[in-house]
């Protein structure tokens, strides 16, 4: 246990905490204490367990083993969590991870204010104060998706501070943010701290230079705590002078110690044309200019660095150089050749490593290397030598037959580089190749790069957001907001602005270029909390305000997403047409031909029973049995009628002739209908014969049938199918959209707001459900309009009753969507699971193809517990049977029961914390 010196009280404590993701250990037996009222830093590279630990402290993750105490209580205890969550604010990792990118700054803040039960006046006041302090007040109406990384982080901070928390937990708040915004961010934090001394702050970071300013540090590696103490103490303990070195010093011996400083031999200056030339390179996406007339020249064998924040245009520039993205204007040349004209031969001279370490994770290391060797057409011999050589040089030998997806990040990155240099390119374009990798692995990677540059004279164009990596480049260019601010050797750049560090120089360049622009620091100061502002604590019970906050937000998001909106309205209308016209039982226009071997008046009368009907269409007569078979076979006719010789005479002689009719049986359903029609034609001939000839006894039936086709006298399928199809589409579409909307929050990460705010699950789910019920109702109106006016099926019964049914049905089907969403974790899975699971009961068991009354066993049970059955009955009843409220009340009652059942299961299954 790491003890805090002195008797200062403790804001959070962890004891024997371990955490597993499937089989991977994220935290192992962690014990620590976090002092109150100070700024505590959690340091270490990606993947060491920092985020997991912060999630546990914030109550966003479920404690698996061990004990987490925050603000004087056990975080595994629901009552305590509910009680303290209004006092904790949590900002998860990733730029704007818990923000809603379709909503504006003001709407985001307003939403968070509502979640904490603030009145309208209070919200307006707080939003004005926070945005003024952070310099966001000029951009209140701008959607979050269009903000720079720095602005997103400031907004995230505003959202976290909207309820004056006592404990602020920030997970890597400055990763990927430009240096100026970073500095402003920390200034902002210290202002806030100055205003609220009692507030405790826990921050994680991968930048060691930031960590130096913290009161207390906890160093982590491999899910364990390496050490804790004041920054100065840590450095003293390890006998080092920088925190980075102190961190490396604390690493266990097995990780290997740093192999000393990286030595970069001086580059032999080389003449000849430059390897890369960019002239006025510009790329616009719509109105947004991602890269704005960028110029630079890179010499052969040079290591050229691109330094800048996320979204500053580094990746876009690199994509233009590789030919992946055509520039809007300007030119790029590789080895003197224009990139647009980039031939396949040119691509052989370039190696590219994209941001995501793009490897085939489902292939082994060797298979990945082999595949690339094949695609570059290396001879078998050369490929083998190259792969052996690289495996040796990059230390991949031991892992050749392992799946690359399962390797640690550092190894995957080396494999990516090996793949990129396999074909011995003269130039390497590397897009943030070291992000997310620990310092030791980063150094190893740089040694490989230096080797390639100095020994093999490979030109290396690399982008990074680490200052110390930029210092290793021969020359760098500073990039911000699509523009290159300066180009030169790192030393030149540092000196040119009279600073001591590259970071300071970068900030100076940015301030010069920007002036008091968008990312300018806030105008006002964040004054101390005004006492009377502190309103009543947000209620922890059910709150209609919060429910409506979710509903309002969901409505705005859907209305701003053209894809989902289009799918909701156009998709269902298209399918209504396709289903209604596509599913029909009316068989008509059946092609038939006759082999008439009699050619008498009687045979012609017999044939005319068929030829005169709208069901049949007579084709050219048949001449032989062989032709009959051939034409059936080639599908030119579906029915062949063979009238025997002496047909007419035999009838008169009273010896019944035998007519043979051959029906195409390949489509069995159609064959059954055709057989029925044929029998009908035959019977009608017999009846006519009996009437005209007076052969009373011949062919006379002992009884007659009077068949009444109720509700649909003309027996056209549209009258049945028109009202049934909306019942199917009103479950398919709303359920899918509903499920996607919930799972989307899981995927994007905004679901964390449910975990760490006082929101209850039922508020979250019902709030999100309301807009989709409205969409269902709107869909109902559109479809009813189409069925009545375009399909011409009159609505005979009560419209109001049917609309009420649709409303309840919408609540039930969206409830089903919620239910599916709680079980699935990706949007694709949500779409397919919703569609596939609802398809069978909807199409087969709800009375569409077969009446529910004729179903048996499991099918019957499924039909009975499926809402479509009841709504379809209502819809068909109201349209064709003219039923009103009294008749439809039983269906309405059943629909009402589905709503709370689906919802209750969804609420029960949806976790209130992440695993």
């Amino acid at each position, binding site marked *: 246990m790491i003890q805090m010196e002195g008797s200062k009280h403790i804001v959070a404590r962890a004891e024997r905490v371990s955490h597993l993701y499937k089989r991977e250990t994220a935290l192992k037996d962690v014990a620590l204490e976090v002092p109150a009222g100070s700024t505590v830093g959690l340091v270490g590279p990606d993947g060491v367990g920092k985020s997991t630990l912060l999630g546990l402290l914030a109550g966003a993750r479920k404690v698996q083993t061990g004990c987490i105490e925050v603000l004087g209580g056990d975080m595994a205890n629901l009552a305590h969590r509910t009680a303290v969550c209004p006092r904790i604010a949590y900002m998860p990792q990733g730029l704007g991870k818990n923000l809603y990118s379709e909503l504006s700054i003001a709407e985001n803040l307003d939403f968070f204010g509502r979640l904490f039960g603030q009145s309208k006046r209070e919200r307006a006041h707080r939003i004005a104060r926070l945005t003024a302090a952070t310099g966001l007040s000029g951009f209140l109406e701008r959607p979050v998706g269009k903000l720079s990384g720095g602005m997103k982080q400031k907004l995230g901070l505003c959202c976290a501070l909207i309820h004056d928390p006592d404990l602020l937990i920030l997970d890597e708040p400055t990763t990927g943010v430009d240096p100026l915004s970073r500095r402003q961010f920390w200034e902002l934090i210290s202002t806030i701290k100055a205003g609220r001394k009692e507030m405790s702050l826990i921050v994680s970071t991968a930048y060691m230079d930031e960590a130096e300013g913290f009161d207390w540090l906890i160093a982590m590696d491999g899910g364990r705590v390496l050490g804790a103490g004041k920054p100065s103490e840590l450095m003293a303990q390890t006998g080092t002078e920088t925190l980075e070195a102190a961190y490396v010093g604390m690493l266990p011996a097995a990780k290997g110690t740093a192999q000393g400083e990286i030595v970069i031999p001086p580059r032999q200056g080389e003449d000849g044309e430059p390897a890369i030339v960019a002239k006025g390179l510009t790329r616009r996406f719509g109105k947004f200019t991602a890269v704005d007339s960028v110029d630079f020249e890179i010499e052969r064998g040079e290591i050229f660095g691109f330094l800048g924040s996320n979204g500053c245009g580094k990746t876009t520039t690199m994509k233009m150089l590789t030919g992946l993205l055509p520039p809007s204007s300007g030119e790029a040349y590789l080895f003197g050749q224009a990139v647009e004209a980039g031939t396949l031969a040119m*691509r052989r001279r370039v190696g590219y490593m994209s941001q995501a370490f793009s490897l085939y994770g489902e292939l082994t290391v060797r298979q990945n290397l082999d595949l690339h060797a094949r695609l570059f057409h290396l001879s078998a011999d050369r490929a083998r030598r190259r792969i052996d050589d690289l495996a040796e040089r990059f230390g991949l030998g031991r892992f050749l037959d392992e799946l690359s997806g399962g390797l640690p990040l550092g190894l995957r990155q080396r494999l990516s580089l090996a793949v990129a240099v396999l074909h011995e390119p003269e130039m390497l374009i590397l897009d943030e190749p070291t992000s997310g990798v620990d310092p030791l692995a980063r150094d190893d990677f740089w040694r490989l790069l230096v080797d390639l540059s100095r020994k093999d004279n490979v030109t290396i164009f690399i982008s990074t957001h680490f200052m110390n990596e930029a210092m290793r480049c021969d020359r760098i260019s500073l990039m911000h907001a699509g523009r290159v601010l300066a180009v030169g050797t790192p030393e030149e750049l540092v000196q040119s602005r009279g600073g001591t560090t590259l970071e300071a120089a970068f900030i100076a360049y940015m301030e010069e270029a920007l002036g008091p622009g968008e990312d300018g620091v806030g105008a006002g100061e964040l004054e101390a909390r005004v006492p009377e502002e502190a309103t009543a604590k947000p209620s922890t019970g059910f709150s209609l305000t919060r429910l409506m906050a979710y509903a309002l937000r969901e409505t705005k998001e859907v209305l701003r997403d053209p894809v989902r909106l289009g799918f909701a309205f156009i998709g269902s209308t298209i399918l209504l047409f396709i289903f209604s016209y596509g599913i029909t039982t009316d068989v008509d*226009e059946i092609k038939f031909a006759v082999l008439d071997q009699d050619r008498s008046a009687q045979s012609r009368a017999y044939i005319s029973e068929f030829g005169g009907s709208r069901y049949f269409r007579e084709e050219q007569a048949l001449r032989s049995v062989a032709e009959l078979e051939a034409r059936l076979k080639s599908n030119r006719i579906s029915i062949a009628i063979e009238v025997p010789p002496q047909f007419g005479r035999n009838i008169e002689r009273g010896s019944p002739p035998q007519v043979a009719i051959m029906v195409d049986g390949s489509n069995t359903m159609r064959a059954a209908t055709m057989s029925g029609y044929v029998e009908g034609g035959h019977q009608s001939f017999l009846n006519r014969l009996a009437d005209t000839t007076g052969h009373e006894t011949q*062919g006379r039936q002992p009884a007659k049938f009077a068949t009444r086709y109720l509700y649909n006298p003309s027996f056209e399928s549209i009258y049945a199918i028109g009202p049934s199809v909306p019942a199917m589409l009103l479950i398919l579409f709303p359920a899918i959209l509903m499920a996607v909307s919930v799972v989307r929050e899981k995927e994007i990460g905004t679901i964390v707001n449910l975990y760490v705010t006082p929101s209850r699950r039922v508020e979250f789910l019902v709030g999100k459900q309301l807009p989709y019920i409205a969409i269902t109702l709107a869909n109902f109106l559109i479809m009813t309009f189409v069925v009545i006016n375009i399909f011409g099926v009159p609505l005979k019964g009560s419209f109001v009753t049917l609309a009420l049914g649709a409303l309840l049905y919408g609540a039930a089907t969206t409830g089903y969507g919620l239910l599916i969403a709680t079980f699935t974790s990706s949007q694709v899975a949500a779409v397919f699971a919703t569609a596939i699971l609802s398809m069978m009961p909807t199409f087969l068991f709800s009375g569409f193809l077969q009446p529910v009354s004729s179903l048996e066993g499991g099918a019957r049970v499924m039909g009975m517990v499926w809402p479509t059955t009841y709504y379809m009955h209502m819809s068909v009843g109201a349209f064709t049977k003219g039923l009103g409220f009294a008749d439809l009340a039983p269906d309405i009652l059943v629909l009402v029961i589905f709503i709370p059942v689906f919802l209750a299961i969804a609420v029960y299954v949806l976790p209130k914390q992440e695993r």
Partner: protein
Amino acid sequence: MGTLSNIFWLGTKEVRSLLRDFVMIALIVWAFGPGLLARATGNAEAVNNASIAFVDEDHSALSRSLMGALTPPYFQEPVLIEPDELDRAIDQSRFTFVVVVPPNFEADVRRGLQPEIQLNVDATAVIQAATGTAYVQEMLMDQIAYFAQRSDPVAVSAVDLVVRRAFNPNGIQPWFQSVVALLDQISILTIALTGAALLREREHGTIEHLLVMPLTSFEIATSKVLANGLVIMFAFAISLTFIVEYSIGVPIAGSRALLFLGTFVYLFSAAAIGVFLGTVARTMAQFALLMLLTIMPMMMLSGGMTPIESQPAWLQPITQLLPSRHYMAFSQAIVFRGAGFEAVLNEFLAMAGLGIVFFGASLVLFRRSITMSR
């Protein structure tokens, strides 16, 4: 030569990736095995277990025997109801058919007065109502005729009719359903597999990697189409042999080689649609939604559910654009009618043509749409 080698190695990678995806493999196995069998044999008869009620106003031996004439599996045990219950029972969908036997029915039959039985059909249940009506009439009439024969001389029909069914003499429903189900499964899986393979590469960023290598869009797209097409082709061949032929017992009348060739051409066009959707959609979720909107019409309008000639006249030319329609016509012709190549030439050309159009469209969009995605 270089192109062929590139396609081959990219295809190998594609198949390897797929084989590691246990969920997909399980889905394929299920779809072509038990799933297919269940779909083909599930809805065995058009009329199955139909609900029927009797209003007996005659109370004679004949009227009682009529109730016994309707037998499972076609009909449920008939339920006797009162005359005033009739409308309400049908309103509530309790019964699809209600037979009303009038007073003095038996006596009138004896006297040869041709009495009338009323048959009420809930015509909103169109599918069962159409075939079921004929069944009810036939079964009841047989019973009445049998009764009449005992009292009267044998009534002879003036003309005998023999209706035979070509290609499926016993009208075995699963024969046809298995072919339809096979079409649906290969459509869904080919499109899903190919499109998802492309989107996965986009989401993982590996597609950019391929695009900066000396490879053409044509090679990348072709490798996806071929690799996924071949996997489904393999599943199709196994399913055809063991499920369709062996288990369900469908006799394949035509040339097997021709059937495989046509299936391959169809797989090409379906995979091309998959690649096309994969280039249009920006995320997996969008792809899933687009796929639903594509697959549904392909399945509904192929002719397997409703014969093409029964679809509205304005719709028929539009369905020409669906490769599934041509494949349905093609496979029916080969499997049941035993047609030769010249009879299905048009279908071949249509499927290949549509495949080329979708494939060409994907190539045009490929590079642009993929690099724009981030």
